[in-house]
């Protein structure tokens, strides 16, 4: 008798042998100068069930440039393990040739040059083509959306997230999880849920007052003779990382015991497969998979990692499908006797110049955008270098935003949130849509206030611990707060309170004094009643004045130690 573990290993081996199906296929295609839609979609059907995973699109309806991180430090057990592998190390780990399409899609080296060869990625009209093609061969394929779908663009802000619900409905999403969705506020979330043709799941969302489940925890999706239990897991730290006054009725948390309870409940109902549609973030999912038993597949979102192969933890596979619509994961499973007996997977890169847009979805996107077209396409100014955000510390977009805050709000120090969303911009025009891609939110007021050096250090230590705590359950999954006007050193492996040293003002290279008060400008405050101009208006103003090509000295300087 073959154990399930052996089956899984065989599955992995198959997946490695079949690498021609996934990753290395693209290189070969490129060698032939012929990347085609058929090649990108090529997949030998396997088993008796297909899952399709999309996540963290952040409302990017159209194809984008998106540079993957150059720094993604893993601490504790996660050091050196996916997704904490970047650049050439990542390429070597997965056998990716430099400058190949997959190197462009998954890693940062030569991004700017490769972007010109391979073009933008994503776009829901292309995603629709992929979903339809998969459903063509597997009509019972289940499409699951990991959340962070409603927020993150000009049109989503203007329509209160409704544009994305229309897109999800047309795409045929069958369940979703959540995070930034809640920043539209409880009432709007409830209104949008009414408009969804699918359930909004959250096993870990509780009523604050009654301490009992507030949302449907799971949905059993019946496909043919298979019953698939899909559990939703919202981002656990919403009331801490985002303004809880916008959704005061709800409490979140990892709630590992609750997850086990829900899995057991589904197993008690004799489902054939248990899938967790998670917005935990990869490291949290990795730990959860090692402690909760009975989950076959975790579809992992939140930390925006695109991982080319499933990661096996115990008897659970974790699938991470990137962000901003760059990838769609297809997972074929052989489900036998109430368990997963094998799998085949492909992280499909959505090359927008290769995948044909689906006409129906393209027309919906056009309809959504048309009232705002003039605003979206307005060129605000130019940049003379690549603008990107993703990475543990300041990206060039963050530097530009921080400089805008310093100058427009006359501050000594700027703070900008370490979110992982926001597309890149190649040298050339910056449009209003580009600015909204990195700033859009329902609490974008840019404040100006006084802060002592001591408080500043406390804030930075606190954020650093939320990212670099060696226990994933204490990580919130963003990146380090972006700074302007400041230089500092950081040792990610040091204990809480000791990571940040040598804090200095760049202007005069003077050490930050604990007792002195500094003028600080920042945005995305979680406090209610924050006042100031919207960050996108402020950034626009700065870029209009030539801020995109301004080159007088660094706005931030961060020295990473101890690695």
């Amino acid at each position, binding site marked *: 008798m073959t154990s399930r573990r052996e089956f899984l290993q065989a599955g992995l081996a198959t997946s490695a042998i079949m690498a021609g199906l996934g990753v290395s296929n693209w290189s070969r295609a490129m060698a032939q100068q012929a990347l085609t839609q058929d090649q990108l979609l090529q997949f030998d059907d396997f088993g008796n069930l297909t899952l399709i995973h999309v996540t963290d699109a952040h409302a990017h309806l159209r194809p984008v440039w998106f540079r993957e991180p150059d720094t993604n430090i893993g601490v504790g057990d996660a050091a050196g393990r996916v997704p904490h592998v970047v650049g050439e190390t990542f390429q070597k780990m997965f056998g990716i040739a430099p400058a190949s399409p997959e190197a462009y899609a998954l890693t940062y080296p030569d991004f700017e040059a490769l972007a010109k060869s391979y073009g933008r990625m994503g776009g829901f009209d292309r995603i629709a083509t992929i979903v339809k093609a998969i459903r063509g061969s597997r009509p019972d394929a289940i499409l699951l959306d990991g959340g962070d779908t409603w927020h993150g663009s000009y049109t989503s802000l203007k329509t209160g997230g409704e544009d994305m619900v229309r897109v999800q409905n047309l795409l045929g999403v069958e369940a979703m999880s959540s995070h930034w969705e809640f920043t539209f506020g409880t009432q709007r979330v409830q209104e949008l849920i009414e408009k969804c043709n699918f359930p909004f799941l959250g096993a870990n969302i509780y009523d604050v007052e009654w301490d009992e489940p507030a949302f449907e925890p799971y949905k059993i999706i019946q496909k043919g003779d298979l019953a698939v239990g899909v559990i939703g897991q919202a981002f656990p730290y919403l009331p801490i990382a985002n303004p809880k006054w916008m959704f005061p009725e709800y409490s979140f948390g990892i709630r590992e015991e609750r997850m086990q309870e829900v899995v057991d409940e589904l197993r008690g109902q004799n489902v054939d497969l248990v899938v967790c549609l998670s917005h935990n973030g990869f490291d949290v999912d990795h730990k959860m998979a090692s402690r909760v038993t009975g989950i076959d597949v975790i579809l992992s979102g939140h930390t925006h990692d695109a991982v080319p192969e499933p990661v096996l933890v115990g008897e659970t596979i974790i699938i991470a499908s990137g962000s901003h619509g760059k990838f769609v994961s297809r997972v074929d499973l052989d489900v036998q006797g109430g368990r997963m007996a094998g799998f085949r997977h492909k992280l499909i890169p959505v090359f927008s110049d290769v995948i044909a847009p689906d006409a129906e979805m393209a027309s919906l996107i056009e309809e959504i955008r048309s009232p705002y077209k003039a605003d979206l396409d307005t060129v605000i100014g130019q940049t003379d270098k690549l603008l990107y955000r993703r990475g543990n510390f300041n990206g060039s977009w963050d530097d530009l935003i921080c400089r805008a805050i310093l100058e427009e709000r006359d501050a000594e120090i700027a703070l900008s949130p370490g*979110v992982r969303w926001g597309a890149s911009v190649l040298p050339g025009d910056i449009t209003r849509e580009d600015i909204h891609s990195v700033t859009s939110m329902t609490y974008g007021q840019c404040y100006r206030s006084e802060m002592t050096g001591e408080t500043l250090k406390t804030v930075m230590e606190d954020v650093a611990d939320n990212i670099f705590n060696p226990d994933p359950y204490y990580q919130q999954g963003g990146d380090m707060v972006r700074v302007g006007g400041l230089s500092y050193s950081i040792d990610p492996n040091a204990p809480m309170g000791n990571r940040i040293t040598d804090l200095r003002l760049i202007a005069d290279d003077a050490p930050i004094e604990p007792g002195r008060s500094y003028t600080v400008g920042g945005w995305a405050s979680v406090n209610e009643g924050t006042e100031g101009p919207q960050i996108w208006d402020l950034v626009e103003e700065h870029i209009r004045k030539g801020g995109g090509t301004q080159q007088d000295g660094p706005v931030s300087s961060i020295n990473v130690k101890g690695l």
Partner: protein
Amino acid sequence: MLISRRGVLTASVGLVGLAMLPVAVRAQDAAAAPAQTADEMIAEFTGGAEAVEGDGVKLTAPEIAENGNTVPLSVEAPGAAEILLIATENPTPGVARFTFGALAANQAAATRIRLAKTQDIVAIAKLADGSFVRTAANVKVTIGGCGG
């Protein structure tokens, strides 16, 4: 369909019957002695006997508090006579001492507490045989604000 208590209460003019738990909560006992340190309280509770780390007592707490002023905690220790709950780094570490009578259907209790800062919460259960078992959970109190 998910039926929540909040929903039921708003929908109908609630027939609320609060079940009386057969639990005597003597939070005052623990709280009334601010001079005592966490270690002293534990020593007093166990009478100096060693409390072994174990599964006999389960403490459920959030990893990171959403609101440090009201952190939900629950403890459970099947067969226990008493459970002592301590917030080790609070100015007044004593949280509660739960005593379960012979008629208690289960030995579990839940409360909400205020945490001054990030710290370990310790739960020690006195089992029916007079032995002690303990567990701890680290609850982080953070200022937050940059997730994404």
